[in-house]
């Protein structure tokens, strides 16, 4: 049933044309390369590896949608912060209760984003600057909490990273995120969020509680970041102070590949998911070629070119719509 409504969304919202088209093209290409993605293990692994990125992209989706050019640069280090505190402060002190761990991850993400939202709203500094600050502060803190990768995830989480079954707890994290988003989407919050992002002054004067909307957007984004951190912790079964940061630009890229507008108002979970999956597929596809010693460089270049190409195509699709 989810796929039906997803299909309707794709045919309805033209900003999803390009990501959906790219998705199909990539799937076909991967299939033609004849590798093992379409097996139980292949899919399980794909879910395992792609979920942190998908969830991180989801985490910035409501925040970007809320407008003011709110590209959340801090989300990567936030992922890392949740990861290292989870491993060092909780597991390191013998707290391995799943409820505590999940609560900590989701709660910490939400609280941090709440703080950022309050600074954005009440100190009134542009979001990109606030989140740049968050990026630097958390990147530093992460290394202070854990100077180098290490530690182990709690025992019950170790099996999560096995990636041998499509229906794994990691998938559950993803489902949980979609469920939360689905609930929000079915309420007026989604429309309010869109309107706030599209023109905040209009929304404000029309009686939308823009501050409340912005706070909720951030808190929800923070909760998603918590889920992303859990899936990331499951993936590496340990703590890592620096790698989380690399997710910032990846997530923003996924978001944009998914057809969202960085200036707010346009975007959604489906687009971000497609964007993230496409990024995964691109890297999957490129590793099926054996470029030998230059493989890393070819991957980087090809990735850049695909990014440019799909952004350009997106422009044509979307601008044609507004002309029509």
């Amino acid at each position: 049933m989810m796929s039906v409504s997803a299909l309707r969304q794709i045919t309805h919202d033209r900003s999803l044309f390009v990501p959906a088209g790219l998705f199909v093209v990539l799937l076909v290409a991967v299939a033609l390369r004849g590798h093992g993605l379409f097996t139980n293990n292949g899919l399980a692994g794909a879910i395992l590896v792609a979920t942190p990125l998908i969830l991180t992209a989801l985490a910035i989706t409501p925040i970007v949608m809320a407008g003011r050019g709110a590209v959340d640069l801090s989300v990567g280090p936030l992922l890392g912060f949740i990861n290292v505190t989870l491993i060092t402060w909780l597991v390191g002190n013998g707290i391995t209760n799943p409820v505590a761990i999940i609560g900590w991850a989701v709660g910490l993400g939400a609280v941090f984003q709440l703080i950022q939202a309050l600074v954005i709203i009440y100190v009134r500094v542009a979001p990109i600057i606030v989140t740049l600050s968050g990026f630097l502060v958390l990147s530093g803190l992460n290394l202070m909490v854990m100077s180098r990768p290490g530690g182990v995830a709690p025992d019950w989480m170790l099996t999560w990273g096995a990636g041998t079954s499509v229906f794994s707890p990691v998938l559950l994290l993803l489902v949980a995120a979609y469920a939360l988003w689905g609930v929000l989407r079915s309420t007026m919050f989604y429309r309010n969020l869109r309107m706030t992002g599209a023109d905040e002054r209009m929304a404000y004067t029309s009686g939308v509680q823009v501050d409340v909307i912005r706070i909720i957007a951030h808190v929800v984004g923070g909760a998603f970041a918590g889920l992303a951190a859990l899936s990331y912790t499951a993936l590496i079964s340990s703590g890592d102070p620096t790698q989380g940061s690399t997710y910032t630009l990846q997530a923003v890229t996924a978001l944009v590949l998914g057809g969202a507008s960085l200036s707010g108002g346009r975007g959604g979970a489906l687009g971000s998911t497609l964007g993230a999956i496409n990024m995964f597929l691109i890297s999957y596809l490129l590793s099926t070629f054996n470029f030998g010693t230059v493989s890393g460089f070819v991957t980087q270049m090809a990735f850049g070119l695909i990014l440019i190409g799909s952004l350009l195509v997106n422009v044509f699709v979307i601008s044609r719509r507004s002309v029509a």
Partner: protein
Amino acid sequence: MVTTVMNSEISEIGRSNALRTHKSIWIGFALLACLLALGALLVPGFVSSQNARSILLLAAFLGLASVGQTLCALVGALDLSIPYIIGGANILLPSLMVAGLPAPVAMAVVLVLGALVGAANGALSFKLQGQALIMSLGVGFAAVGAVQIYTSLGSQFGGTVFAPVPVWLRNLSAFNGKFFGLPFPPVIVIWAVVAVMLGWLMYNTWFGRSIYAIGGSRTAAARLGISEFKVWTVIHSASGAMSAITGMLLLGFSGGGFVGVGDPYLFTTVAAVVIGGTSLLGGAGGYGATVLGVLVLTVLTSLLVGLGLGFPAQQAVVGLLIVPMVAIYARTPHIRNQI
């Protein structure tokens, strides 16, 4: 009817006006003075020609890398390709020299390529203003990937390229470099010249004013016949060229090509621009402000190092500094006042 009120002299219109109206400049100076005073008090050896030289040298690299970021910020763009072009130039130059090009020719080639990639970045980013951030990232990836492929072909080089760095290039940007016999590396002078020239050009040329005009109001600028496309392309091209220059000068500093030398400049250039007081939304600020931002950042880092703080703590302190700095001079008006 309306009486004419023209009591004040029409003078000191240009730069002094900017000084008067830009709180950020004064705050930047005050902060810089505070940091220097703190350093003098707390860190032995902080006030020394050796330390001044090293601060200025590190500031010069950041300053040169921030030229493009400042120009882009003035029209409301962010250029994330800077670190990649720096890295690309840093390995392309030695590999061209290994291939037998004389150093000046190789440098010219790198410079032109940097400018071309920048121009492509500008043209593409312009098409997608909302997503310019990611577009510039994509261009950066593509460019650095291509350069690395080139440097890897027929050699085992990839991220690193070894070649003897010409003595004069080394002298330009090494700590022990000499400027006509004076004990500081010429790159500091290069930066100073670039800063003064750029500051002057921004206020006194049509192109400079066009940049501000576009940052202030795109449509109004278009009505004056200012081509936004051209300005974006030229600005990004300048950014690419400056990044290439920075990358080449860094070669003299690090002694060998390494594609990762640009990495620190991804967000530090943005931080320098922001701390200086240039609005990321365009139209206000300037390179003078960025120079201050660069100095504040570099002196602060030096102070923190002197106080024994490690890199993580330095990063956190810089991060913590940004919000209050910007809050002092660039708070967005409350939405009530924007209607």
